[in-house]
């Protein structure tokens, strides 16, 4: 293979050309961050290394602006014996019985869904499903929380049908029932719609999978779709240094999903888990191989030696930094004992999924990546995962808040007589945010798998997870950005309370919380204040209710120009239903039943 003419930036070359200028700023790295990288490596990074640091130290992967706030979820966490895995894992896992556990998580795919609504939403579902799969669980249901601009805006007519078709297209084809969600219209989302997807999975308590790349000598296997130039977005600036602008155009940021491949990937992984054939597993998400390789080795404290040319490519001309940055969908990374490699590859073949050994675990504490025999990456993996920058960004209550709060609802005209009351009621129930949502929900399969006990139009979804014992779980996700705009602390608490109530009224006991925090730019002190308040509100609310936050996702930079969206914390609550035969649907069940109002 050495015959290949290699024109890539190797470690050797980096040492020889110490002063070469690198486009770190275009990759979103600050000068001091770039300096840190050089300190860590004792030299300038190679192109591939620079790409990897820029990805792993990005807001999306490093949580650099949110980290110091999210700590509260751990600090204020009420004691819970059920929690088997929490924040920091792909998804939180809670034990339901001695034998069964569930895992669930919400994640955003906002920006891609604005660019290409169908594929953006579809790959959003695909991504969260792989998170759940990586914990060792069989994904069993999905939900989606959506936000669009004004219902009658032309761009909503472009985005909404595509997003809904994408959520449905991917979830239906995977065979996952959609058991609920939200659709809210507000002009603040006009240029920045939100697509949050939730997935829940079930696993045996002793089937929990780990991501650690333990055991030097173990094999690193990449399984699933071929790697292409999907979503390498920012990293393409590395190419522009060496390629002409013509080839630059060939670097799409849009990923295309293949739910069929994902279905095969799910079945193969579950078979691998059941046969106890693997040591570790990690899904490939936003940061592709870069994230999977560094996280698995860093969390085990091991190293890795990877031959990047072994990765199956969709386009032969791909460069190492592109392969490392690629966001191609439907891929998983496995850590396998050498003696079990054949069995693993056999199961992949049975399901028609390709799987390739691309490297081995080492005890060097370094992630070393070769490209046709030359070393292009040699880094301590922990430096990418754990040593990223952390910011305590300035916070400041938005200037307009007192005015907004002063503009109270009491000043609005009220219906003065029964006629006007009737009129108001009719207008309300016909409004986009309150009207019947079946145009959307009918595009989702709610029956597949045969365990859906409650789904739309109920306030919470309920699914059976054990046919013998009738055990089930209830799920709801809620958010009210208008409340949160007025008071992010109370707004987050209210969303939590609503979700909690929705779960409780089905007859379930709420036990765990996940969340997706959708906000504007963290560099805007007003937004940062909203975020800090919302996190504090959620953490306090959880403490009061006595349930832990088990995971979540932060999506910043949701804004158009300088105008951020309303702060939109979407809070999901999961509850245990001891016997789904006793579920309580929301409809009146028969004439003559008495109505009571509980609470204040």
């Amino acid at each position, binding site marked *: 293979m050495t015959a290949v003419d290699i024109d890539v930036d190797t470690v050797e070359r980096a040492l020889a050309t110490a002063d070469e200028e690198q486009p770190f700023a275009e990759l979103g790295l600050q000068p001091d961050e770039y300096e840190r990288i050089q300190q860590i490596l004792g030299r300038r990074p190679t192109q591939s290394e620079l790409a990897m640091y820029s990805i792993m130290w990005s807001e999306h992967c490093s949580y650099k602006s949110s980290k110091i706030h999210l700590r509260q979820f751990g600090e204020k966490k009420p004691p819970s014996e059920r929690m088997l895995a929490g924040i920091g894992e792909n998804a939180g896992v809670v034990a339901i019985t001695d034998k069964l556990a569930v895992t669930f998580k919400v994640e955003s795919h906002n920006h891609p869904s604005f660019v290409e609504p169908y594929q953006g939403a579809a790959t959003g579902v695909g991504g969260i499903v792989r998170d759940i799969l990586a914990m060792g669980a069989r994904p069993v249901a999905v939900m989606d929380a959506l936000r669009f601009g004004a219902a009658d805006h032309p761009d909503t007519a472009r985005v909404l049908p595509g997003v809904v078709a994408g959520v449905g297209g991917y979830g239906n084809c995977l065979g996952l029932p959609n058991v609920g969600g939200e659709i809210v219209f507000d002009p603040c989302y006009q240029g920045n719609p939100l697509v949050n997807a939730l997935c829940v999975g079930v696993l045996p308590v002793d089937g929990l999978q780990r991501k650690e790349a333990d055991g030097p000598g173990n094999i690193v296997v990449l399984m699933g779709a071929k790697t292409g130039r999907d979503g390498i977005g920012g990293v393409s600036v590395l190419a522009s240094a060496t390629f002409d602008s013509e080839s630059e155009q060939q670097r799409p940021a849009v990923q295309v999903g293949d739910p069929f491949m994902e279905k095969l990937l799910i079945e193969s992984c579950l078979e691998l888990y059941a046969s106890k054939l693997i040591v570790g597993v990690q899904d490939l998400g936003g940061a592709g191989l870069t994230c999977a390789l560094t996280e698995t080795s860093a969390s085990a404290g091991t190293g890795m030696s990877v031959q990047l040319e072994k990765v199956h490519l969709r386009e032969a001309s791909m460069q190492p930094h592109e392969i490392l940055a690629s966001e191609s969908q439907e891929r998983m990374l496995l850590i396998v004992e050498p003696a079990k490699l054949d069995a693993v590859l056999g199961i992949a073949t049975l399901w028609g999924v390709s799987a390739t050994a691309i490297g081995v675990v080492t005890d060097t504490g370094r992630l070393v990546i070769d490209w046709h025999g030359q070393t292009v990456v040699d880094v301590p993996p922990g430096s990418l995962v754990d040593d990223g920058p952390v910011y305590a960004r300035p916070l400041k209550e938005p200037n307009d808040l007192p005015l907004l709060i002063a503009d109270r609802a009491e000043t609005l005209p009220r219906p003065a007589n029964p006629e006007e009351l009737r009129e108001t009621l009719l207008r309300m129930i016909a409004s986009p945010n309150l009207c019947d949502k079946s145009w959307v929900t*009918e*595009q989702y399969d709610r029956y597949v798998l045969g365990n859906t006990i409650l789904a739309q139009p109920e306030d919470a979804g309920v699914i059976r997870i054990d046919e013998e014992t009738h055990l089930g779980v209830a799920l709801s996700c809620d958010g009210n950005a208008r409340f949160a705009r007025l008071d992010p602390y109370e707004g987050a608490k209210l969303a939590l309370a609503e979700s909690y109530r929705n779960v409780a009224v089905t007859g379930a006991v709420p036990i765990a919380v996940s969340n997706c925090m959708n906000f504007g730019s963290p560099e805007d002190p007003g937004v940062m204040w909203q975020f800090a308040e919302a996190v504090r509100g959620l953490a306090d609310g959880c403490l009061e209710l006595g349930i832990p936050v088990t995971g979540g996702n932060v999506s910043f930079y949701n804004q158009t120009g300088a105008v951020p969206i309303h702060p939109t914390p979407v809070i999901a609550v999961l509850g245990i239903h001891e016997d789904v035969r006793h579920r309580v649907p929301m409809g009146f069940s028969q004439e003559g039943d008495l109505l009571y109002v509980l609470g204040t």
Partner: protein
Amino acid sequence: MRIGVVTFPGSLDDGDAARAARYSGAEVVRLWHADPELYGVDAVVLPGGFSYGDYLRCGAIARFAPVMETIAKGARDGLPVLGICNGFQILCEAHLLPGALTRNQHLHFRNRDQKLRIEAAATAWTNGFDSGQEIVIPVKNGEGCFVGSEELLDRLEANGQIVARYVGENPNGSMRDIAAIRNEAGNVVGIMPHPEHAIDLLTGPSVDGLTFFTSVLAHLAGAAQPVEEEVAA
């Protein structure tokens, strides 16, 4: 009685079809697309889903699975076969049933509880119904619009090969409101809505779907009898 349920790559409602067969009292045998063997099953269900991603045309690729060759042969010899949704599409693609299923007229996937009228109770899979009986089972598909030439449709009507029709709103634009058809012999039935999702009030809108599965058991029990009668006579 043994009912085989086939799993293709991308089958999704195979577990549900197996559960429905089990509820009806049958012994369930899971069949694999790549294995031509039918393991002596007395009837076969091709379940719903997105075999091979439903890429190209629904059912077009599944038709070439090794198990389909054996099933096609069996079907010609009278083996009861029920194709549900994607299974119906596969049966049409394999020419075991006439006509074709195309994109829903409104171009959307649609999932709702659907009222049907059983038009032909004289099939292996519907003998437990009365002709004209109305039932409710879920429909969920993106390509469930049955099409065929006028001549074919007339022939299906004349032969009593239309097994069920949509009542009320036609969910996909199917010609002549066709929801299910059978082959001439009556052992092969394709149905777009999902009987396997209507077997328990906890998880479905009715228990009407179970009758499809109990019907085939009755059919198989009955098929065993005439032979005895002949011997007796």
